[in-house]
């Protein structure tokens, strides 16, 4: 084969290597900011309004186990998960496990409109736990991509489990059982 072929081949190897190394270095530098907020990471400051008034904040986390799920009224998997969470709300007393469903309606829906939609959905389904509405900042802080996205905090406010996508109620309940049983 010709010398040109050899040079072109090594040029291809050099481009691939340069691309891989550069992407790898850039990725490594951003590693901590990639993906969802992970287990054991410091929980960022957040504050979302609740549809019944008041707020849900990071400062509320210590003292009891928290289950927080990000959802939207248009998301069928989220609706199924909210049904599962309602069953869990009936199983554990509110002073042991607090469930908060944070709405991320998206699609240009304002926080005010999302408050109305979320409240109507809560009333129609008879949900007995807190419903908040995110203006986008809390979801960004938690690295929420798709929904449902569910996180479990222990009594100290540490992030203990992250579920991306629809997971069974049994799996979430298993994690809650384990965290509640801790002293």
């Amino acid at each position, binding site marked *: 084969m010709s010398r040109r072929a050899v040079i072109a081949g090594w040029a291809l190897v050099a*481009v691939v290597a340069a691309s891989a190394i*550069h992407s*790898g270095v850039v*990725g490594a530098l951003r590693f901590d900011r990639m993906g969802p907020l*992970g287990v054991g990471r410091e929980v960022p400051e957040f504050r979302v309004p609740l549809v019944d008034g008041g707020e849900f904040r990071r400062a509320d986390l210590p003292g009891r186990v928290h289950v927080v799920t990000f959802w939207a009224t248009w998301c069928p998997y989220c609706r199924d998960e909210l049904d599962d969470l309602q069953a869990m709300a009936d199983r554990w007393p509110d002073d042991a496990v607090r469930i908060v469903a944070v709405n991320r309606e998206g699609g240009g829906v304002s926080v005010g409109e999302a408050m109305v939609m979320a409240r109507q959905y809560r009333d129609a389904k008879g949900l007995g736990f807190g419903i908040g509405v995110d203006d986008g900042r809390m979801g960004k802080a938690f690295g929420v991509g798709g929904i449902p996205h569910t996180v479990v905090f222990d009594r100290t406010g540490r992030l203990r489990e992250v579920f991306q996508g629809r997971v069974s109620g049994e799996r979430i309940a298993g994690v809650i059982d384990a965290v509640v049983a801790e002293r």
Partner: protein
Amino acid sequence: MSAVLHWVERQGGMLVAPRRTAAALGDDEGRRDGRWALVVWLLGVHTYDIVEVVARIVALRNLDGVLGGAADLAFALLAPFVTIFALELGLGTGRDHRAGTCLAPMLAVGASLRLVQTTGLWPSFPTWLPGLVGAAAAIGVALYVRSAVPVRRAVPVRPEEAS
């Protein structure tokens, strides 16, 4: 010469003199080029995505992270997989064993585009662009070299049929 050096020469040859290179290859040469191309594609185009997958697995620390990461990597390989099928169709029966070797332009285009993106020279283009442009380049080269690729003889099923 080692298999790696032969691979480098074949890839370079497919970039600068594809017809001559394809015509000169022996029957046994480049049989694994398709598999190597998948690895090179992942490294050259999707290293950042691989780091993201690792970050998600570390963050989630559960099976969801592993399965989601596997799905992401499978999705990253979709473009070369589909392109190989298109190349086999384009080359036709008896010449389709050169499909993997014809992926060389796709690797060059994909890695170059990813490099100019990550270095900020052309920061914003759709994520599917390297796959699409690379596939078009590979298919173009395959159609260009098609007539120069010697048709491979059918391999007999049993050794005694070889005579």
